[in-house]
């Protein structure tokens, strides 16, 4: 099956947890939880607005993690945030708090391979999977190292640009996913089996299906957060995510006619 990983900015509204539960109910395989940062330099205008809105509401990392702790979430949660929030309490303490709140993974878009060692070690010691990102411009030797060191997933950044909705999926998405798959095929360890998620600028069911065909799954953020900012209810959002789920499942059925492709997330939270 193809993995569907919606993104939600934590604290964006008072009832943000309801959106999380709606995503789960609609068939999300995991949820990326954006921990809002004051200077989200890799995010486009939608996630910037969502982050500003959350911070203006006064949420803190502590308040977010405390809210999540009591919630019956079955799907894996992956934190998406920026390096300064990780380093401020120290990578070890930050990962400890994530693990305590039930998170499975962590993505830090401004922490490239060369700066990642201390966070990789801290994450590993607390059972947090640090997922690394690959970009269309990443050279082959570097891509191979990212594939070897990434945990949980391998995140294929579909295009050169920020997060945000686009009219079409970039052609670089399929090319990059294929390059990552080729690098995985050259390995015999666990890295060879990590799901490749395609993200950044994936908008709507048709693009989700296209991105899903390119990799093992898709991350969808801005397209959903735009609806939340515009006042969509949790029920509205659940319908959106169901449509994405259906599109991905259709893409998967078409693909299995050619070859069996199984990418699963092993284990479940709690």
């Amino acid at each position, binding site marked *: 099956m193809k993995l569907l990983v919606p993104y939600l900015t934590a604290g964006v509204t008072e009832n943000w947890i309801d959106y999380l539960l709606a995503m789960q109910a609609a068939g999300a395989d995991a949820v990326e939880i954006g921990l809002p*940062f*004051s*200077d*989200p*330099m*890799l995010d*486009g*205008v939608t996630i*910037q607005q969502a982050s*500003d809105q959350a*911070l203006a509401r006064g949420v*803190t*990392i*502590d308040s977010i993690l405390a809210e999540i702790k009591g919630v019956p979430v079955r799907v894996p949660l992956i934190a998406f945030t*920026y*390096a*300064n*929030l*990780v*380093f*401020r*309490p120290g990578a070890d303490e930050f990962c400890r708090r994530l693990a305590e709140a039930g998170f499975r993974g962590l993505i830090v*878009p*401004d*922490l*490239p*391979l*060369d*700066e990642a060692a201390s966070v990789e070690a801290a994450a590993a010691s607390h059972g947090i999977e640090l997922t*690394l*990102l*690959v*970009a*269309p*411009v*990443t*050279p082959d030797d*570097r891509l191979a190292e*990212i594939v070897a060191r990434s945990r949980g997933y391998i995140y294929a*950044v579909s295009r*050169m*640009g*920020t997060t945000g909705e686009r009219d079409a999926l970039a052609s670089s998405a399929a090319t990059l996913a294929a390059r990552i798959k080729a690098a995985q095929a050259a390995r015999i360890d666990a890295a060879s089996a990590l799901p490749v998620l395609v993200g950044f600028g994936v908008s709507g069911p048709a693009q989700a299906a296209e991105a899903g065909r390119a990799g093992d799954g898709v991350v969808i953020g801005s397209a959903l957060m735009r609806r939340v900012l515009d006042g969509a209810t949790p029920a509205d959002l659940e319908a959106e995510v169901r449509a994405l789920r259906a599109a991905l499942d259709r893409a998967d059925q078409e693909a299995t006619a050619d070859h069996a492709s199984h990418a699963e997330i092993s284990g479940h939270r709690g």
Partner: protein
Amino acid sequence: MPTLMTTPAAGRFGGFGGRFVPESLVPACDALAAAFSGAWADPAFRAELGDLLAVYAGRPTPLTPARNLSAALGVELLLKREDLAHTGSHKINNVLGQALLARRMGKRRILAETGAGQHGVAAATAAALLGLEATVFMGERDIERQQLNVLRMTTLGATVVPVTTGSRTLKDATNEAMRAWVADVDDAHFLLGSVGGPHPYPWMVRELQRVIGDEARSQSPYVPDVVVACVGGGSNAAGTFAGFADTPARLVGVEAAGGAAMSSGRPGVVHGARSMVLQDADGQVAEAASIAAGLDYPGIGPEHAFLGSVGRAEYHCVKDDEVVAAVRRLARAEGIICALESAHAVAWVLREAGGPLLPTGSRVLLTLSGRGDKDMATLGEVA
């Protein structure tokens, strides 16, 4: 005595610096570091830049003895006159170097962030001269208070993009410029205006600004006791300090009290480097608040964080009212209207002269980083 970093391969200044950028920008940073290394070692590049600095930017800038103030304060004060450089500040030194480099790398356009607009004007100037397209990102709030520089940029043919997110100042303009760079990394060079950002910027910009310190060192009749410059990101201070790092001179950076990353910040990662950052307990970056738009920035270049941490340089701060008073005192004593940014260094000297930090008889070299025309409206408002 620790001196400035001379082997920049890792982009580290002690525990500061580095390259905290999205994967999408890593190859571009690598390419830029290689290109600058090559250019800086190439006599032809150095000659071309040296020629532009002389016949276009007006270098060397004079070292002016501030005779009246010196007599009044009981210290010997020399002013390194970057306010007399073309476009009105030291920013021209950096932009000419980076624009030449951009052309050498085959880039068609430059992207720049600006606070007070001095870097934006300089970048637009260099782009016009060298046939590059310029897009300058500027916070909406800074656009309101620096109208003159906005008009200068558009007159020079640059596109000024208002930034409406966050605090609508330099920090947000920098975010937006980096976002634009990710989206156009093949065609565009990110012409960063200060000694912050990911490697190679802190090193490259300091090298391009060291002409300030090298000139001052050769112009000064003696090695001063104290070398002082204002610090926002810290490029004029870095360039000035570079000329004196291997002397016994005390190096003093003066920050705005409302943007004092060294005095009030903690180590953090913002805009691609680990340095000192104003931030809260979670790591949310604080909004700076200074009358000088060019110092309205919650971070500082990583080399300053390093020099401060090892005690080679000291960092102090002054308040807005001291800064306004300093502009007026310098103007009336010496007939020089300096920028609000530069006036921070002046204000520190005015405050400390005769005290323990700056004993009577001290010989002080102060970099006057820019001229104050742009600030006349602001000064008018504070009467």
